[in-house]
C-alpha cells in the first residue's frame, strides 16, 4: 500500500493505492493516526488507484471516520471502482459516508 497525503481546500486528502488488506492495513491505519488532527478534521480518502480492499481496510476506515466525527469533522471517499466500489456498497459504507466521483468534487463546498 502507498499512502500519499496532501492538503487541499481545508481537507486532508489521502491517496491510497494498491491494496488495503490484512497485511497492509496496519501501515495505513498508523498513517491515519499520525495525520488526524483537530486543526483539520476533514479528510478525503482518494481510492482512484486502490485495487483491493478487505474487511481489515473497512474496519480501519470506520475507525478513522468515527475519530474525525468526534473532532467535529468527517471522512468522505472518492474514486471508487471495481471491487473497491462493490465492497463499499455491500458493506453499506456508502450510506454512512459521503462518496464522490473525484477529489475535486469531494473538497468542493457542500451545503
Amino acid at each position, binding site marked *: 500500500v502507498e499512502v500519499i497525503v496532501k492538503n487541499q481546500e481545508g481537507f486532508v486528502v489521502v491517496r491510497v493505492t494498491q491494496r488495503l*488488506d490484512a497485511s497492509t492495513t496496519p501501515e495505513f491505519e498508523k498513517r491515519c493516526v499520525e495525520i488526524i488532527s483537530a486543526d483539520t478534521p476533514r479528510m478525503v480518502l482518494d481510492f482512484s488507484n486502490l485495487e*483491493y480492499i*478487505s474487511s*481489515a481496510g473497512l474496519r480501519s476506515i470506520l*475507525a478513522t471516520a*468515527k475519530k474525525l466525527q468526534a473532532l467535529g469533522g468527517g471522512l468522505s471517499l472518492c474514486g471508487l471502482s471495481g*471491487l473497491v466500489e*462493490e465492497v463499499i456498497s*455491500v458493506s453499506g459504507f456508502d450510506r*454512512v459516508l459521503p462518496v464522490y466521483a473525484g477529489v475535486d468534487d469531494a473538497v468542493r463546498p457542500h451545503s
Partner: protein
Amino acid sequence: MRSAHIPEAVTRSFPARVEEVTTIVAYLAGRAAELGVPDMRVMQLELAVEEAVMNICSYAYPAEAPGELLVRTWAGPDCFTVEIEDTGDPFDPLARADPDLPDDLDARVVGGLGIMLIRRLVDDVRYRREGGRNVFTMVVRIEE
C-alpha cells in the same frame, strides 16, 4: 480409466498464521487465474479467501500452538471451487446472521463484515464438519 470430466483437485498446506495470509491469498489467486477464472472474479475470491483464512488464523488454534491449514482447489466446466480446512475446534462461520448495517455512523460497530462479504462475493458458500476438520467451501461460476 479416468474420466475427463472429473476435475483434479490440488491441495496445499500452509501454517495457520496471520503472517501467512498474503502468501495464501496470492497462491489462491494464481490457481484461480490458471484455471480460467476471470480477473474480477479472482479479486472477489481473493477477498473471500482472505476473510476465511484470517478467521482461521485468528481463532482456530491457540496462539502458542498454531496448526495447519489446507487449501484445496479445482475447477469443473463452469465453476471454480476452493475448500479451506483446519483441525481447530468446530466452528461454523455461517451460523451467525449478517450484522446490522445502520445508516448512522455512530451506530456502526467496527468489525464483523468478513463473513457477510464472503456471502455476497462468491456464488455458493458452505460449511461442514468432517472427521475432526472444519471444511469451508466457496464456489464461483466461471463466466465472462
